[in-house]
């Protein structure tokens, strides 16, 4: 049911209840989309949106913390690095298997620590007298029991405050156990303004302490890494299947279904693909500067987007054999997609969606809804930056504030031995002509129609107003929002955990998603909200004689 309100009026409704100071800030984070000019990649430029900005205290936010971004998102999906969380028990406990990153060890003996939760369970005396000793001992115990090849340490809020030097502990322990790569992340929850800070911290340390250590990459003619795909619900498995069918060698995924060995050899490939731009663009940039590995943005959410991304890979390698094979795969896979679309599109077409999730998904998932004939009428990210909204061309214009300045920006230079230039400026220009912008990401807003509402860091109050005013057929968000929205009679699709189903990436994932959305928007129980006596609550004077 599209709203009768004009977008500006709807924006006014969203802001109405706020105290002046809150309204002033939110006003800059709620933008009616406009196409204002043209960027170098030919896409429209859009208005500026305030993002990656402090959450307002007391306003019910969807956001989490830096630790969640570092341990939960980026490192969590790697199965054979043993993750010790240094802090009181909670942070380790909450990030234990809850993100549904699937993993598939090759044999029954291969290490897999993802089902385990490791914590130093800091007690009051550790807070008062320091926790380094306990951490040191915890590392020793973990090594004695599990014998991992790599072990990492994550700090939680109080660790930073009491001044435990987790990096010194890591160095000391590595000196004692030289066979184990031990490194640490200062990802205290208070850093930055959201999960986003944690992504950056994770990228930095993996880049300095893990990447580049190996010398036994996978072999193949077309070798690449997939960055920013976390294998929730088996998405990475589906992408792996497609790559294999195309003859592409996937050296490593950062970090769905990944291993330590895949990481240490990741610098040998010729291309990095960036899926979730927000969480991993730092890694792509640093690997390009140090090793000369070019990157471009892909999207494997949506059948058309998957096909487009595969074609971009073919264009990059510029090889007839690969191009032909990819075209064959697309043709073969698309047959089933067309069938699924014919079945589900008529049942979903014309309905509306709103998407408030992540730092990429609110953009990526619009593809799948489009394929079902559904319009995404409002959308926004939980923890993204301006470049994820407006495109990377705004990067030079983004002001670095105090919260971002605290997150280290690494100085990276070309490796004297391992740097190899893969593309000349002419190659890049030629690729741009084919629609492939190296180091580019167009962002969400240029691809969304004018008049659509873009809302950064959507909060509970605004979600409630949106439901009341535009009542979308489906709401895409996370678990905290799930039952809030559903109590209002609108189905919510969890786009972090997928409601414990999936995959939704690639071709098979697209077909899964069509069926899932049909299930949700046409579910029978939603039609039973009113009991018969509630439909006509007035008692009627007449009565039916049953004789």
């Amino acid at each position: 049911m599209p709203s009768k309100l004009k977008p500006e009026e709807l924006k006014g409704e969203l802001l109405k209840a706020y105290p002046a100071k809150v309204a002033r800030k939110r006003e800059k984070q709620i933008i009616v989309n406009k196409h204002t000019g043209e960027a170098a990649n030919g896409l429209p430029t859009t208005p500026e949106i305030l993002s990656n900005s402090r959450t307002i205290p007391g306003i019910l936010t969807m956001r989490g913390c830096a630790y969640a971004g570092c341990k939960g998102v980026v490192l969590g999906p790697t199965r054979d690095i043993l993750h010790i969380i240094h802090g009181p028990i909670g942070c380790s406990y909450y990030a234990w298997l809850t993100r549904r990153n699937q993993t598939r060890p090759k044999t029954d003996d291969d290490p897999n620590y993802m089902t385990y939760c490791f914590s130093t369970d800091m007690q009051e005396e550790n807070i008062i007298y320091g926790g380094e000793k306990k951490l040191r001992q915890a590392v020793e115990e973990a090594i004695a029991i599990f014998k991992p090849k790599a072990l990492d340490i994550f700090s939680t809020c109080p660790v930073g405050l009491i001044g435990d030097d987790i990096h010194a502990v890591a160095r000391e322990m590595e000196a004692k156990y030289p066979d184990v790569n031990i490194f640490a992340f200062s990802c205290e929850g208070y850093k930055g303004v959201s999960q986003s800070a944690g992504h950056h911290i994770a990228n930095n340390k993996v880049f300095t302490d893990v990447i580049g250590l190996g010398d036994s990459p996978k072999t193949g003619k077309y070798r690449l890494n997939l960055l920013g795909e976390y294998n929730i619900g088996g998405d990475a498995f589906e992408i792996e299947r497609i790559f294999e069918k195309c003859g592409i060698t996937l050296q490593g995924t950062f970090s769905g279904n990944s291993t330590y060995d895949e990481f240490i050899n990741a610098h040998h490939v010729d291309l990095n693909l960036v899926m979730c731009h927000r969480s991993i663009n730092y890694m792509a940039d640093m690997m390009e500067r140090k090793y000369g590995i070019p990157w471009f943005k892909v999207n494997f959410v949506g059948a058309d987007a998957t096909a487009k991304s595969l074609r971009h890979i073919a264009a990059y390698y510029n090889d007839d054999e690969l191009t032909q094979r990819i075209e064959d795969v697309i043709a073969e896979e698309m047959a089933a997609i067309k069938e699924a679309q014919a079945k589900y599109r008529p049942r979903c077409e014309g309905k509306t969606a709103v998407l408030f999730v992540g730092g990429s998904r609110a953009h990526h998932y619009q593809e799948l809804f489009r394929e079902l004939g559904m319009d995404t009428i409002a959308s926004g990210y939980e923890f993204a930056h301006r470049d994820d909204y407006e495109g990377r061309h705004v990067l030079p214009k983004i002001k670095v504030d105090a919260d971002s300045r605290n997150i280290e920006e690494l100085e990276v230079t070309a490796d004297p031995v391992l740097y190899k230039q893969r593309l000349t400026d002419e190659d890049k220009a030629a690729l741009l002509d084919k629609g492939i912008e190296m180091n580019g990401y167009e962002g969400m807003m240029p691809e969304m129609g004018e008049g659509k509402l873009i809302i950064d860091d959507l909060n509970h109050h605004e979600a409630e107003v949106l439901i009341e005013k535009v009542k979308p057929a489906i709401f895409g968000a996370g678990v905290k929002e799930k039952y809030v929205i559903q109590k209002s009679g609108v189905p919510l699709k969890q786009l972090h955990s997928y409601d414990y189903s999936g995959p939704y990436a690639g071709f098979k994932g697209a077909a899964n998603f069509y069926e899932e959305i049909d299930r949700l928007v046409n579910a029978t129980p939603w039609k039973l909200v009113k009991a018969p006596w509630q439909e006509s609550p007035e008692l009627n004077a007449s009565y039916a004689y049953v004789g």
Partner: protein
Amino acid sequence: MLLRHTKPDNGVEREALVINPAKTCQPIGAMYAALGIHNCMPHSHGSQGCCAYHRSMLTRHFKEPVMAATSSFTEGASVFGGQANLLEALGNIFSVYNPDIVAVHTTCLSETIGDDVAQITSKAIESGKVPEGKRVIYASTPSYAGSHVTGFANMVKGMVDGLAGKTGTTQNTVNIIPGFVEPSDMEEIKRISAEMGVKTIVFPDTSGVLNGPMTGKFHMYPSGGATIEQLAATGDSKATLALGPVASAPAAKALDVKFKVPCEVIELPIGITATDRFVDALHRLAGVNVPELINRERGQLLDVMTDMHQYTYGKKVAIAGDPDHIVPLVEFLIDLDMKPIHVVTGTPGKAIPKRLEKALERVGRDVNVKVPGDLFQLHQWIKAEPVDLIIGNTHCKYIARDEDTPLLRLGFPIIDRVGHQYFPTLGYKGGLRLLEKILGILMDRQDRDAPEEAFELVM
């Protein structure tokens, strides 16, 4: 194998490393308790990640909206103190969400930097951030002490500290503090009390908050919860009955110390013996007779216990859970002639091993007990001596699958099944539900494993 690295004995005496915890941190318990006050907004004074994690976990457990706000600390707040954040938060919460009360709990972050929430709250009131007639209560819940159960206890005590009063006229009411249990359990406590004709104030009370109906309309503050008036009146009650020493005793004792309301602390009414104690305590404290209906419910539970005894007799059980749950649970299992042989709780506390020891006296064999212990330890024991049944929260499903041992989900969190929100495990009716589940699980297993010639039609 899901937990492929777990061996019966790895030759390492762990002292520092917790693996697969059987507890989580205080603030989540405080948030849950605060949801048991009507028209209340729980508030987490710390980084927003704490609040996000707690809301997510409670949402997964209840499959219900869990509303709570946060001070959203930044690095600056962590260095200079969180006062400005909390003041701003309180102003925003009252103007945007309009609760009657905000219940603030601390986190390891705000505790480590030494924020004085009492002082900040006074300042909020002085500076007009708290509108006339609205209330703010608080509890200190550092994550580096105790567990989620302790956090619950501290917030319940915070309700007494912040709201309870005394008019001088003692009312004919009994306060019941139900402990860290399900909304369905709180409802059952109220039903049993009402059946017995006892006027009660049950607090906190999450029934009607975290097991609400689908009506097509979202209510930020659902119909349930103990009201501020009820909480204020707890000081006038003639007695307090605290269910579960860890979760409920601190508030009960505070009422005793501050308002001379005498308290009795008993185990949670799980199973027949513990429910007998509960009913008997109500009978004594309120001076009421036990009605026939309650005798009948007791009789029905006992009837099934005797009828189906052959299926429970001698069965070995491994248990992980919160202290207030596992003590009466162990008693119930022993009443069924089952053998609890491995027992862990993640919650620390000097009195807990003694309570367990007493409850386990009648087992008639050595029992592995660890307080505080973790699920890795429990799994190792199960590998060394297998059991017929595991009782614990959802995390135990990994052990259950690896060891091909059935699991009864009980406690917190249960994030992969529903039912706990709606059907109690407390009281005689709850005992019957527990027993039905235990029998169903054990007998399904017997049916699955029986040779064809021994496959029974009648059991």
